[in-house]
């Protein structure tokens, strides 16, 4: 079933914090990740869908039905919490069987279904254990099994991987995606990890200060961010504040760049975005957008190398497989995106996540 938010606003009483005019659709079987910095309102969106909070304005629809005032327990949503929220006094099987017990499923039937669900997350051998006896990853699998066992209308994941260590996290991404696809369930995944969002989701929603900045496929968000905040939050980025000289050139801290500036007037302040992997090492064949400088920092990242080149009054971050010494780079015009400046223009020039 689908989940739909229509112009939803909510403010925490006595604070200016909340979400403002949020509209969002999760289609049946779709995996939507909401990302954004701490306090951007992404968890508030989940709580509103879950019914833990009620919107001040707007509507929430589940499977096309208005659920704005429906209590949480009638919304039929599977929720996985950051800290798993497994019942410590119940065994793994009892935890998973609990939603079935609430739905009046007979003892034999719920035991059979709970054990089957526990098996699909690979924990058949642990069915009799108590949650505190399991590792974080195992507890998260139990939480997933419990959230899915009663065939909910949608699955809500509240930063489910943030309490796990790095290796387990990558493994669980695939596990969550596998289960989500097997159930064909509309899923909302809240995370502050942009890499996690890009690698898992069908659609990524970027939020800041209680508003949705952009929603789109992972590649749309990465390749065509609508503003500086989105560009800075998703992936690595060279972001320079520049002043338009004419329709062909922009003045930046690293020097004059040739780019397509149609639509901007001379003197306009703009944000210039170049992804580090789009910066080419070595001189340009035609000499356009070619810069030389000294390497300020050089990082070996296994499959590639990321270095910062000090050029003029700025820095160019470059990602390359080239291992030799580099002091000249060039940037193809097609690799340069011009974005309007937004509220976060004072943020640091280059973001390193």
């Amino acid at each position, binding site marked *: 079933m689908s989940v739909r938010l229509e112009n939803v606003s909510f403010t925490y009483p006595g604070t200016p914090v909340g979400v403002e005019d949020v509209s969002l659709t999760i289609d049946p079987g779709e995996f939507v990740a909401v990302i954004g910095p701490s306090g951007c309102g992404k968890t508030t969106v989940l709580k509103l869908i*879950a019914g*833990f909070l009620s919107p001040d304005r707007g509507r929430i629809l589940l499977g096309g039905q208005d659920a704005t005032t429906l209590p*949480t*327990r*009638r*919304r*039929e*949503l*599977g*929720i996985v*919490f950051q*800290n798993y*929220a*497994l*019942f*410590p*006094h*119940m065994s793994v099987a*009892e935890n998973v*069987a*609990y*939603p079935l*017990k*609430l*739905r009046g499923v007979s*003892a034999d039937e719920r035991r059979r279904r709970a054990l089957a669900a526990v098996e699909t997350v690979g924990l058949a051998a642990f069915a009799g254990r108590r949650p505190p006896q399991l590792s974080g990853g195992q507890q998260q699998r139990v939480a997933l099994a*419990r*959230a899915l066992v*009663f065939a909910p209308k949608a699955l809500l994941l509240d930063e489910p991987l943030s309490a796990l260590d790095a290796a387990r996290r990558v493994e669980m991404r695939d596990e969550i995606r596998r289960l989500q696809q097997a159930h064909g369930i509309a899923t909302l995944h809240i995370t502050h990890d942009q890499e996690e969002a890009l690698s898992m989701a069908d659609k990524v929603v970027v939020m800041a200060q209680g508003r949705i900045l952009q929603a789109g496929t992972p590649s749309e968000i990465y390749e065509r961010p609508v503003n500086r905040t989105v560009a800075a939050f998703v992936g690595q980025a060279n972001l320079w504040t520049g002043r338009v000289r004419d329709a062909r050139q922009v003045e930046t801290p690293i020097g004059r760049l040739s780019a397509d500036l149609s639509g901007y007037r001379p003197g306009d302040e703009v944000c210039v975005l170049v992804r580090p992997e789009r910066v080419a090492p070595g001189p340009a064949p035609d000499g356009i957008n070619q810069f030389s400088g000294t390497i300020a920092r050089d990082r070996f990242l296994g499959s590639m190398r990321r270095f910062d080149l000090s050029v003029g009054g700025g820095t160019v971050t470059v990602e390359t497989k080239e291992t030799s010494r580099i002091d000249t780079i060039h940037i193809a015009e097609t690799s340069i995106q011009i974005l309007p400046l937004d509220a976060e223009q004072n943020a640091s020039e280059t973001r390193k996540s």
Partner: protein
Amino acid sequence: MAGGGLVIDGRARAAAWRSPAAWVTGLYALYLVLPILLLVLGSFGNTWSNTLLPNGFTGRWYLQVINDPSFTRAFWTSLTVCVATVAGCVVIGAPLAYAVSSAASRGVKLAARIVYLLPIAAPAVVIGFGYLLLFSSEATPWLGATWLIIAGHIVFCLPYMLQTVVNDMRLLGLSQLEQAAESLGASFPRRFVDIVLPSLKHSLAAGSITVAALSIGEFQLTNLIAGFANRTYPIVLLQAFYGATGFACAATVVLLLLALTASASSAFTAKGASGTARAGA
């Protein structure tokens, strides 16, 4: 490997005996236990006056205590009051603790905190005097009634129960467990019975031990409201101190046993009661 472990263990133990902390703890434990040991010795001693230890061995003091109707009556009154106070504190304390910790507004939480800390802050004698004034009028002639003693004890003991349970609720992350249960389809009564009570099993048990011990030993408040016919054990015990030393010792040891039994059994009962709440999950 096992040998190495033993050596380290031995060294650690030797080091522990040299540490000042171990000595302080040991001396303090001795200071705590010594009076109790002397009481037990005295309760079996035939005569005990002007000597360090009592002379002779006898069981007659215990027989005297058992055969004294005012002591046996007080014993049963104390036991009844204690059991009822523990039950009352569990029954009132669990929902109240839940209300306090899940109250959304900070003002409500503060008010609740003040209200339930008041009986700790106000001396028992003050509360007792209030009761004395309130329940000695012709319209409210209930001074000395067992239920009034129980009510007094609940007021006096409840804060200790709440303190334990509210703290544990926070530590357990109970609000998130409840949200999880709610999302799975559990109504409030179901959540309370299936999740809240079983999660609080240990804290209710711990709170019950404190409440039972406090109720059994309570003197100040009870002394003012118990009247003459319905006194609890500690109040009757005070009389014993004017008689033979052996009798006083025996009567005190009985109180000690009563307190230990009450604490232990209340803990088991509280644990069992909240445990059965989720039978057949």
